[in-house]
């Protein structure tokens, strides 16, 4: 640790900026798609307007590619000035090791606790009563996206919930349409299963298993129904061979597939393709069964730097990210929900408004990243991708699911 500090000091001397009252901050993130980049540009614009300079450090390939790089740099003693992580436990150990900037003072000065809504967003940022991160948006994964054109072709009305979706599947298949689009990557299988947990098992069971971590309930007959439903659903996705989530979304956009279980970020793809919610496609939050959303999303962390000017600029950036104006501009571009309850997103589209309503109604649950460790999440993803892509029995899958989750320290 001592050597590390010396090097930190050395590095910051080298990097000392020439200008006196403005600092250059390098910010790393994995937002590289069209809509995502436009959203980041809003942060950068607002930050540059304060006289500082945003140095963009985008890393493509998603969080799985970007996070190892970020973590290596922070532990290697050459940290960036700010970095994205998902809400939850991804950066907890870095905070515990004292590598992250304490934001409590800014948070208290600006009164974050008063306006951040839902309040549990901030809980993930708190360690021993101190605040170490800035939540910037809410993304909920449990949405069912449906192609109206596909259902028209098959001659069935567009489903309004998951059960109707399953019932309509044979007709779609008869019309040569893949009922369910599902990408190959492990996290997508896990996301689909997570959505089914709430749609089939219900909210109470979800909370019992995932929040109270009641493994007897997880091994029980009610939870078994979720696995049976998933075993059923994987047959609907048999013909879907795409890799990326947006390629799967593209199957829905073009009417080659009936529907896809995907997070609210999918609406960005529909928007780019010029599709209109309600006319060309239908979105069902909570799979149309339970109107609720989970509060996953992105947060920014600020590694400790020795240069006081940079530290001041870090705090300025943190404060800026949650400000009303920036929140509106950022989230409209990103297609995500804001983290403040006190702003009006009049420009939001239909699907986003549905999300906002549910959020305002308080029908929220924590996201998987918040309740389980990254280790458990990864193992569950591995299990789920095997389950969805092979003929593993529902009983076996349930047994292994319980084994994985029992061991979470």
């Amino acid at each position, binding site marked *: 640790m001592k050597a590390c500090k010396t090097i930190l000091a050395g590095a910051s001397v080298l990097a000392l900026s020439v200008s006196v009252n403005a600092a250059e901050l390098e910010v790393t993130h994995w937002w590289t798609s069209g809509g995502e980049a436009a959203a980041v540009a809003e942060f950068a614009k607002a930050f540059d307007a304060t006289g500082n300079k945003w*140095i963009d450090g985008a890393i*493509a*390939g998603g969080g799985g590619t970007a996070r*190892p790089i970020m973590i290596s*740099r922070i532990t*290697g*003693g*050459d940290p960036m000035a700010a970095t994205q992580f998902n809400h939850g436990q991804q950066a907890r150990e870095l905070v515990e090791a004292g590598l992250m900037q304490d934001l409590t003072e800014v948070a208290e000065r600006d009164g974050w606790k008063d306006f951040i809504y839902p309040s549990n967003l901030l809980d993930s940022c708190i360690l021993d009563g101190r605040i170490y991160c800035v939540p910037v948006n809410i993304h909920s994964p449990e949405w069912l996206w449906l192609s109206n054109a596909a259902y028209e072709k098959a001659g069935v009305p567009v489903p309004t919930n998951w059960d109707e979706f399953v019932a309509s599947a044979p007709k779609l298949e008869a019309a040569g349409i893949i009922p369910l689009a599902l990408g190959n990557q492990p996290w997508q299988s896990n996301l689909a299963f997570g959505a089914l947990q709430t749609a089939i098992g219900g909210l109470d069971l979800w909370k019992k298993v995932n929040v109270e971590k009641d493994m007897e309930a997880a091994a029980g007959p009610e939870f078994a129904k979720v696995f049976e439903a998933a075993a059923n659903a994987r047959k609907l996705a048999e013909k879907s061979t795409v890799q990326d*989530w947006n390629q799967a979304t*593209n199957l829905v956009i073009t009417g080659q597939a009936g529907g896809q279980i995907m997070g609210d970020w999918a609406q960005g793809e529909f928007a780019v393709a010029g599709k209109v919610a309600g006319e060309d496609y239908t979105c069902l939050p909570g799979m149309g069964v339970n109107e609720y959303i989970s509060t996953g999303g992105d947060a920014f962390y600020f590694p400790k730097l020795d240069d006081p000017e940079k530290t001041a600029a870090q705090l300025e950036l943190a404060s800026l990210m949650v400000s009303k104006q920036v929140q509106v501009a950022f989230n409209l571009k990103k297609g995500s929900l804001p983290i403040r309850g006190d702003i009006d997103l009049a420009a939001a589209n239909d699907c986003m408004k549905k999300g906002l309503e549910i959020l305002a109604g308080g029908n929220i649950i924590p996201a998987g990243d918040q309740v389980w460790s990254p280790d458990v999440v990864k193992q569950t993803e591995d299990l789920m991708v095997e389950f969805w892509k092979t003929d593993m029995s529902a009983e076996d899958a349930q047994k292994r699911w319980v084994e994985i989750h029992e061991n979470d320290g």
Partner: protein
Amino acid sequence: MTDAAIVSPRLEPGPRGQKPRRKLSRRNIFLYGTLIVVAVYYLLPLYVMVVTSLKGMPEIRLGNIFAPPVEITFEPWVKAWATACTGLNCDGLSRGFWNSVQITVPSVMVSIAIASINGYALANWRFKGADVFFTILIFGAFIPYQVMLYPIVILLREMGLYGSLWGLVVVHTIFGMPILTLLFRNYFTSLPEELFKAARVDGAGFWGIFFKIMLPMSLPIFVVAIILQVTGIWNDFLFGVVYTKPDIYPMTVQLNNIVNSVQGVKEYNVNMAATILTGLVPLIVYFISGKLFVRGIAAGAVKG
């Protein structure tokens, strides 16, 4: 050069004996037929890349990846080089090109300098324990890079090189060392011992022999080493992205960014153009030095 050729004339590549007679024998039909089929298989992917990079997206969607472009467009190339976006930076691969040059040149020079000295010390000055070091080194060739990622982070941190260009040079030197040392060691072993002994009798020391006797005779193996290192370092993605900062990210990182950016429709033509552009430097090195490469390989790998 001439020395090496005199000493081991059979290391010279190229056909031996008289020119073959032009004859359409059954043997020749089989021979050239096989070679042409194989060559087509090897060229197919390059053909697909080039053809695709010259098509517009609507044409690609029609389906046939092997069909030549109906309407040739260079737009994907321009976009890949100059305007493709990563996050907020919309200057395509151009930014990474010079970074890659900056990384590759010192890395290649340092790694080859050290590996050639290693090989020389191992081949001609076999001190006690040399074989042990060499065995460990070869063992190192098998260690997956991902496994060493973390120890290297700690190492660079302790050396104070983390995040700097020289840190990356050190990493490339370390991971290039096993195979290069193996090649140099084998090559120096294959050189006639008499030269070395004569120089020693004349009183030349370690460095004297290395610079005056060994180096002038080692062009083929240096060509091999340069080719292997330029290719390896230029194509490296993992080390470049983990051990440096965005302002010196190599070209492959930008390639990854362009290819992996999750956007509405995958722009296959831009991807392919970016892919070819990134691979151009190693490809040119290969085409220029093809003959020397085989000669060097012959010298470095055969003896052992």
